[in-house]
């Protein structure tokens, strides 16, 4: 029997596979398709303090091996989450992580203050990297100084560990990761989506009402992997790899590159049980190769 558990220091996961925020609803949507308790955990859709309307449609464009979305973080807000969703999640034997959003530093802090005392949340993932909610794809994770201040402010308030989710739309993602670590982030997750667009040549209009969106899916995996490797080489806190993972082999690439866990995102749309398939395939790989603990593989990329 392979030991698939991984230790993030602040949180022990039964396996390294988390379902990514924004691709897994509030978790319950997936209960008909898989046993949620077989996952390492899942990260619920980003929450602002209040309900949020999101962007006008069209919100999606399919591109080669990819998907551009501009949902704009439509969501129910913390009150409805605490009243209607969390009670149904809290008995689950898996790690439920809440993705935290904010228009301003104050809003991030308010969301964390509200959720702090509630039972059933294992950690917060700080969403400072959504490209669809500010003008021109801007987000706090584009700048090391802004990242540092925001993480610091949230860390001061939070009673739970903070995973900081980074944007790939920067020149040096390792520098942003270092700023988040210095501010006290307990872990770094990367990458959020790549700022992207698509045009209808017939109408000469952008295919998304928001003009820009975020590209995800298998198309981004090689770039995400490179960034995860760079960040894992730079910071000491655990790194969670995200970007186009849809198989056990994909996940293993990220673990070898230094990620201690991974998030499965867009693949959940294609196959609602994709995250569980990734867990199973990691186990099968380990068995085939006589690996007793999946942690033995983390960061074991051999170069030269």
């Amino acid at each position, binding site marked *: 029997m392979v030991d698939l558990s991984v230790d993030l220091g602040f949180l022990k996961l039964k396996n390294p596979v988390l379902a990514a925020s*924004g691709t897994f609803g509030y978790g319950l*949507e997936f209960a008909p398709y898989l046993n949620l308790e077989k996952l390492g955990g899942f990260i619920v859709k980003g929450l602002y303090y209040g309900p949020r309307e*999101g962007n006008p449609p069209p919100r999606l*464009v*399919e591109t080669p091996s990819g998907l551009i979305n501009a*949902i704009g973080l439509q969501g129910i807000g913390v009150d409805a989450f605490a009243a209607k969703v969390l009670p149904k999640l809290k008995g689950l034997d898996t790690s439920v992580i809440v993705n935290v959003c904010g228009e301003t530093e104050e809003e991030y802090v308010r969301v964390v203050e509200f959720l702090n005392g509630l039972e059933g949340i294992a950690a917060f993932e700080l969403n400072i990297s959504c490209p669809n909610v500010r003008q021109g794809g801007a987000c706090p994770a584009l700048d090391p100084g802004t990242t540092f201040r925001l993480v610091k402010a949230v860390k001061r308030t939070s009673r739970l560990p903070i995973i900081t989710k980074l944007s790939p739309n920067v020149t040096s993602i390792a520098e942003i990761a270092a700023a988040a670590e210095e501010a006290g982030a307990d872990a770094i997750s990367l990458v959020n989506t790549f700022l992207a667009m698509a045009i209808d040549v017939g109408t000469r209009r952008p295919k998304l009402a928001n003009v820009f969106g975020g590209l995800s899916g298998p198309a981004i995996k090689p770039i995400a992997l490179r960034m995860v490797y760079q960040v894992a080489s730079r910071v000491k806190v655990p790194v969670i790899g995200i970007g186009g993972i849809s198989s056990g082999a994909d996940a293993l690439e990220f673990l070898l590159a230094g990620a201690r866990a991974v998030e499965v995102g867009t693949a959940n*749309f*294609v196959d609602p049980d994709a995250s569980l398939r990734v867990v199973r395939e990691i186990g099968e790989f380990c068995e085939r190769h006589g690996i007793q603990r999946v942690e033995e593989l983390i960061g074991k990329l051999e170069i030269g």
Partner: protein
Amino acid sequence: MMKDPTARIATVERRGDYRLFSIETPEVAGRARPGQFLMIKVSSQPDPLLRRPISIHARENGRLEIFFQVTGRGTEILAGKDAGDTLDIIGPLGKGFSLDERLKGMRALCVGGGRGIAPIYFLAKELREIGALPVVLYGGKTAADIPLRAKFEEAGLPVLCSTDDGSYGFKGFVTGLAAREITSHLPAFLFACGPDAMMKAAARLAQSAGIPAEFSLESLMGCGIGACWGCVKRIRREGQEGWVKICEEGPVFPRSEIVWPEED
């Protein structure tokens, strides 16, 4: 809702751009209601990435049927499948049309434009099951765009056709035909599925005739199961407007809730 990765295509009919598949998927078929849809994986490769939402056309002899038009890469790949191939499907998804017992003995106009006719067949048959009197109005651009006409007739369902060019039946839009039918014999209910402009016009007809109506909306979908928030339409409930996921809360909505987009 469930996933069936080995739904077997039993028969395939090809008519120009249109395809009619019957699919063996007993559990999904058993749960299906008119107006619901399937998410179908068209390729085992990552490109094209997403499943395609395809409405359920019929349930015949325990098989599900889909009727679709080739409109892009996804449906083109799907159209290339043959009898004996397997499909990976998720379904039945969404909420379907209301099959209200109070429609018993009442006339119900079922309006389908182009490929929007697909769910209308299942709907009309189920309406007849509950004792309602469905009348199908089927519109297409030309006579080649109403390939299901004979199927409705063979099922004994009253069907009136329109073509934009007058090559078959009523000359003009199917909403012109609907206006004529409403005037000649006021129905108790109107159901419609088709292009937005057609449904918007049908909604206006229903409103001025003072009859309740339901419309099946269409959108690109990322997942079909309520997880991506990609397929939203503008919906008004209790005076509040918002973007509502049609995969989960639709695709069928009552006329009173739909906020139709302004024309460009």
